[in-house]
């Protein structure tokens, strides 16, 4: 389990990193926390002649709140995301999803950007990003900065809309305010394993307890993270307390394609688990929303702490 020979580069800035990527092309790969890339290199499942280490770039760190969104630098470690009180207030789903990512040793190195760029269909952050319609900020030497909506970002198994010479520099998450509830439910064989299936739910209630908006993100149930548009549509406008969770689960599972089947379970098994997780997450999120005082979280109350 030793990687093949590669050349290691440690650019001093985002511009330098982008320039190196442009110069070295396909033979280069960005190295962030290394928690996904290094095992693949060591098992010789992947070979790259050049690694460009972005893990120490200040330009990829930091957390800012502007208007109705929270922007996190792509290089922020998963541990930093999970520990940040401001993140927890502004985008509770991120804070609640973080402890489910691997183990603390992995979160100490693994990064938000690495997780999203790696785009594992069972990863938590991509599902949160998709559910909340986050915006992914890419940067390249040739095209400069560009923003990719999450709905267009995850293009297939471990593949994204990033160009080979593009760096993911930041992620902007909308901050939900009002009478909101959030929940993450997932099922894994052991604590820290990639989930067999998982569900993230965000919902907002209006004054008469009807669902004003709903977002359901799913992981482990396809070749990319997924939304559950039929279930979301069925929920909006209904009284949260009157919704049948099992029915939402069924709707969320309807029409799924490419459901993984592996050692841990068949596609049917995943559907059974996925439907149940939708029901459990919906119940938890609607209970939270119903109990919320309606003031909720505002972007301004989210602290800006450097990750």
């Amino acid at each position, binding site marked *: 389990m*030793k*990687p093949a020979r590669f050349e290691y580069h440690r650019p001093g800035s985002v511009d330098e990193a982008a320039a190196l990527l442009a110069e070295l092309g396909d033979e280069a790969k960005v190295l962030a926390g290394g928690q996904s890339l290094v095992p693949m290199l060591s098992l010789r499942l992947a070979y790259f002649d050049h690694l460009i280490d972005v893990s120490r770039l200040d330009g990829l760190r930091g957390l800012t709140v502007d208007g109705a969104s929270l922007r996190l630098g792509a290089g922020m470690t998963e541990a930093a995301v999970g520990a940040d009180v401001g993140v927890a207030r502004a985008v509770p789903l991120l804070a609640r999803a973080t402890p489910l990512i691997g183990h603390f040793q992995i979160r100490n190195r693994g990064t938000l950007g690495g997780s999203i760029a790696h785009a594992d269909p069972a990863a938590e952050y991509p599902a949160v990003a998709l559910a909340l319609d986050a915006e992914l900020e890419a940067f390249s030497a040739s095209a400069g900065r560009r923003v990719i909506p999450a709905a267009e970002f995850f293009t297939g198994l471990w593949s994204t809309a990033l160009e080979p010479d593009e760096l993911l520099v930041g992620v902007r998450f909308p901050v939900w305010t009002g009478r909101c509830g959030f929940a993450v439910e997932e099922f894994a064989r052991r604590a820290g394993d990639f989930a067999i299936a998982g569900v993230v739910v965000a919902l907002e209630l209006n004054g008469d307890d009807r669902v004003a908006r709903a977002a359901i993100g799913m992981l482990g149930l396809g070749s990319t993270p997924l939304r559950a548009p039929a279930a979301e549509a069925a929920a909006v406008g209904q009284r949260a307390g009157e919704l049948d969770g099992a029915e939402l689960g069924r709707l969320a599972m309807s029409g799924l394609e490419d459901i993984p089947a592996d050692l*841990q379970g068949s596609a049917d098994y995943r559907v*059974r688990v996925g439907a149940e997780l939708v029901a459990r997450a919906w119940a938890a999120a609607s209970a939270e929303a119903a109990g919320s005082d309606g003031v909720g979280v505002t972007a301004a109350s989210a602290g800006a702490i450097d990750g």
Partner: protein
Amino acid sequence: MTETATAPTPPTRYTGSRVPRVEDGRLLTGHGTFVDDIQRPGMLHACFVRSPFARALINEIDASAALALPGVHAVFTAADLNPDVHEQWYSSYGPKVPDTPRPPLASGEVRFVGDPVALVVAENRYIAEDAVELVEVDYEPLTAVADYRDAQTSGILVHPKYPNNVAGGLAGPPPQVVEAAFASAAHIADETFYQQAYAPVPMETRGMVVEWSADTDELTIWAATQTPHEVRAFGARLLGLEPERVRVLMRDTGGGFGQKVVPMREDMCVMLAARKVPAALKWIEDRRENLMAAGQARHEHGHARIAFAADGTILAAGIEHTQDIGAYPTPWPVGAAAAVGLLFPGPYKVPLASWSTTSLFSNTAGRHAYRGPWQFESVARELLLDIAARDMGLDPVELRRRNMISRDELPYPNPAGMPPYDHSSPLETFELALKMLDYDAFRAEQAAARAAGRYLGVGTSTYIEPTATGQEYYACEGAVLRVAPDGRMTVIVNGGSSGNSLETTVIQLTADALGVPFDNVDTIQGDTAVTPFGSGTAGSRSGSATAGAVGEAAAALRAKLAELASPRLGVPPEDIEVADGRAQVRGSGQSSGQSSGQSLTYADLAGPDGVEASATYTAKAPMLWSNATHVCTCEVDVVTGKVTLLRYIVGEDVGPMINPNIVEGQIAGGTVQGIGGALLEHMVYDEDGNPLASTFVDYLLPTTTEVPHIEYGHMETPAPGPGGHKGAGEGGAIGAPPAVINAVADALSPFGVKITNLPASPAALVALLTEAGH
């Protein structure tokens, strides 16, 4: 909770107490010395080219591109290494058993994915792995026997010399012996149980550094092993060297559990290749190799039957057992399987039993020893008892109470061919563990939970196991005790500790045997040049065997000290008592003033060159019986199939404990491995024989989050061996799987679900629930 059954052994200072482990300081601060820590001048690194096919012909091997890579020293194939094998057999079985094939490198045909085909030697492991990718092997893939259950019918032979892929079989009393009892039975329980392949997965993988000195014809081996002396004996035979010219060294070994009990094919290759390279050769197995090629265990099934009278008493029991031995098992697997049949009746009053066992080759990793290699007897029996109880409308605990052997009924015959059970306490540990749980309270809690739609379960498993065998090879353990001029003691034994604390153990025993403070004793282990023979960590023997060896060497040393003291104390040696760190005239007592005329310290007697005595202990009893009951409670999520363990209790009897911390550590380690086997660990192969769980992404070990706090209850029934101590090494791994499975099955009993296939993965449980209409 500790209870001593009969007269306690004489009071001792350290034996029986929770002395902190002397190994812990270095291990917990990261200063252990494992084989990969060994560095030698100019050392070279080995890496294997392994087969990507379960079965294929090797048409040609072209190593030219690999040899052209800078930093590559050699590429060896079967043609280079295999002819150098002088003799290849293991001391425990001797050269005469009909052993299965075991070539160093694959020759002509590869027989499992991971089969070593060539050995690359390079300046470092990175270059070696680069070169491995450049070795071109022309394979001609063939259809494989991917599942041993197809071995007898597939028409494909793993080894041409074994028709129907049968490596051998053994049988005890034939089925006719029990037929009448089954014919007259009021109730018969009859199931076929299947256990998946899983493995020891030691934290430290296999590894070896071998250095050949051509000038002196001497071979030095640093090994990760459970027994340096067997590595020496095996290596000497393999290479045709005098054992005295082979020196084997080890300090710390990070777990063995049977995987490191004897050298395997890769070890043979490294020993053979070391004579052909100009410097020491290091091979450190990586995790993928370990999970793919170090071997598997536990893969077997058995048709098990128990006949009951109307009141639930057992009339007869029988098992027909079949095991997967893979392509290249280590060591000979056929004989070891007999224990499954012999122990199937377990700690119950079973009048009649029959059994048979068959070993089948397949194109998968070879079977090897694993902590309690016969544990399938407990899996089959304990699962079947729970199924029988449910079918008869009895509580499984009640059914066991009606049949279990209690201490005052011993000795009690075993109907399968074992010597009678003795000096143990099955019913007593059973009741102890149930009391620790408060079984009735749990049943009430379970009923309340069920009413609320939650599914809790409780399972028990009781076994009795032969430990510290008197079988010739494993009966033997030597010890040397030395008093330095300043009076400090050193105890020298073979060692082979792979986590089982042999250093602490022999220091405790020595300190007591000579009446000196624990801190005044050192130990030397793991160097065949200076240690006496011992057969190492195997068969739950080390505690008893080292107690015997230290005891006999201490007696010899006391005699020598008495001889030395005799002229100075002016009395004959038989009038001198050697105890509490002194030699004194018998009867003079410590209180009678310490006048130099009456009492001498060991330092007074040692002189400038010290005093030394040695002895070799040979176990006389055929076996010492240890026993235990495991009790587990759990909750099952009936939608996802997830099992959460709630409480885990072990009531056990290994006789008087030398060190309760170490005993509990052994139980915990084995129990966690058993929990893994019941719920998580699975060496899966696909239908072409490809291993699907060759990294820790897919091979799921239990971690701290899956394992509950383990509670221990001790009973101490002394055995007729040194100090009364019995073996503690293997039991945890035997008792745990059935306790866990029974708990899960109990939780799911409202659905009429029966578990006969392991592991109880969430998906497997959901499949059973679905089948049952839930």
